[in-house]
């Protein structure tokens, strides 16, 4: 091909037009999908500041279409003028919020601890439990992922009743740990497999035991993976509804159950429902925006071998 000097031939212009067209199409798709993703969140956030006429007229943009009011947040006891006062609704909300936070944090931590240990063991040593070898043990752990919650729900209902664990946070924590354990093991096995064994060998030569090598050498290296697994577990356990709806009634009701119980009643006003929903999703939106890197890392862990 001869050296080209002018880039305004017929073919070049056509190429450039096509390039702009594809750019335009890509950004159109991106913006459209971003709108689809963000609009419900925007809608919920703005609705919580609306009053009845605003909802009925379909006003969308605050300060332009309507003046925001603290109505929704006042009904939760979280608006500026009620935040100082006693509020039973707020107390209720905060109680649910702490329940959710404690169960999610505790079960994720427990799952990460148990899961990391198991994943490390499975990635380094060969075991034999009766006829089960390493791959079978791994499969045993991972197969728990397939188990649908309904299968466990009713037996657990009866068992927890007998164990006096119904409507307690401990009961929920144990169950949630079980549901996220396979995911943690999956992510962590991948993490540990990517760490070369020479590191431990060097540590062992230097006189550390297996556990010493694991705790002081390997754990710090695998920490980003553990954070990813932890965040992913946190998201799943914070949002969990099915078990919480069946196994809790008064004391340890979590936030999703509270939101769901409010949606059921038709009389409830839009703005307070919006405020409640938004308060329920806000922590995870913050987590998602700040720790997006780790979430993506966790989810991508199993995808690419």
């Amino acid at each position, binding site marked *: 091909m001869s050296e080209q000097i002018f880039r305004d031939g017929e073919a070049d212009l056509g190429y450039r037009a096509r390039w702009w067209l594809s750019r335009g199409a890509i950004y159109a798709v991106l913006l459209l999908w*971003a709108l689809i993703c963000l609009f419900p969140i925007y809608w919920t956030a703005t609705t919580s500041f609306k009053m009845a006429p605003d909802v009925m007229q379909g006003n969308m943009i605050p300060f332009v279409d309507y003046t925001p009011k603290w109505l929704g947040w006042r009904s939760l006891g979280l608006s500026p003028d009620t935040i100082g006062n006693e509020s039973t609704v707020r107390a209720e909300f905060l109680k649910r919020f702490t329940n959710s936070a404690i169960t999610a944090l505790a079960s994720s931590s427990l799952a990460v601890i148990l899961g990391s240990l198991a994943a490390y*063991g499975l990635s380094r*040593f060969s075991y034999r439990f009766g006829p089960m070898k390493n791959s079978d043990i791994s499969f045993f752990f991972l197969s728990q992922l397939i188990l649908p919650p*309904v299968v466990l729900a009713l037996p657990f209902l009866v068992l927890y009743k007998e164990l006096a664990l119904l409507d307690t946070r401990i009961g929920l924590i144990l169950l949630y740990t079980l549901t996220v354990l396979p995911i943690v093991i999956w992510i962590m096995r991948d993490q540990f497999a990517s760490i070369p064994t020479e590191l431990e060998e060097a540590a062992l030569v230097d006189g550390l035991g297996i556990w010493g090598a694991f705790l002081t050498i390997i754990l710090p290296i695998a920490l980003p993976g553990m954070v990813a697994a932890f965040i992913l577990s946190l998201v799943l356990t914070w949002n969990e509804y099915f078990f919480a709806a069946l196994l809790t009634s008064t004391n340890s009701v979590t936030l999703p159950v509270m939101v769901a119980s409010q949606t059921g009643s038709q009389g409830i006003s839009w703005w307070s429902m919006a405020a409640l929903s938004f308060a329920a999703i806000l922590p995870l939106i913050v987590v998602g925006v700040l720790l997006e890197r780790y979430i993506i890392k966790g989810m991508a862990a199993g995808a690419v071998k």
Partner: protein
Amino acid sequence: MTTEGDLLHVVTANDLSPTRRAAGRALIWGSFGLLGVVAALQILNATGALDLGFRSWRPTLYGYAFWGTCLCIGQVMLKGEQGKRLVFVLPAALFTVAMVVFPLIFGLTIAFTDWNLASISGRKFNGWDNVRQMWTDPFYWNALLNMAWYVAAILVEYAIAFGLALVLHAEIRARKFFRVAFLLPLMLSPVAVSWMIGKSMLEVRFGPLARLARWLGWDNPSFFGSPEIARFMIMAMDAWTFIPFMMIMLLAGLQAIPRELTEAARVDGAGPWKTFWEVTFPLMLPVSVTAILIRIIFKLKLADIIINVTAGGPGGATDSVTSFIFREYRDRSNVGYGTLLAMVYLVLIVIFMTVLMKVAERWMRPRT
């Protein structure tokens, strides 16, 4: 990942003294004996043979936890270095066995009983009655059929997720913003989503989507009136929350493809369309299969949105198996029948997933 044989070799002088081994053995069996004694006492208490004043079965639970701890310590005392390795896996294994295997066995014994928590008569063994009832229960079969529809919808989700991953993989500005924005739906709890979208945005009079539908010329938008549209709406809401999940996995796969391959294809004269189908798509096959399989697993648990938006209506058209059993328990407290339905569902899932995994494995082998 299926490495058999130790990756890490440790040579230790495994000269454990007989007293240490004996102590280890004593610890394990002693605590096991304690667990047995506690359990036996509790059974006697429950059957009324002895009145020991136990109000719950918790002592047995504590016994199990104590035995588990002693087992771990005992392994180290008994086997030395080998025991220390066992302790890595043992806690998770004991936990899973206690939380899954035991309840499953217990569930099997419930599944063949007529047990309504609301009735006073308590639990009665009724053989195959539940199975017969299931066989003639149109709503259960309907729910299973719906699950087939919901699972089929994953193909559309996959296509959208793939498209979005490709777009995100292209050279664009503000990539981080778009990635975070696309990821956010996954963070939201299905319950909140069912209010935000299902109950408010799809509200017939004031919801913005209803307004949009009217503006587009649909006079009387009703999103949950007819079975088909209601089912589609549930699919759409579930897709909305889970498309980011597939998208991220596919994006990770795309980023792992070396750039030289697509560049080589371009040099050889392939257009973008051809490059995608001949190079990118085949290379993405393993990741795609993994993403779809995991997505199917999550889809089979679908319930929260259905419970909160339509409660299975209209006429069971949107019911998933999970939401159906949930209502079976909530409305009728029918533990025995509900458990049987769940067990049958589990068996179906295990068969379905095994077949699917085998097929996927066979299908992928010649290409990789």
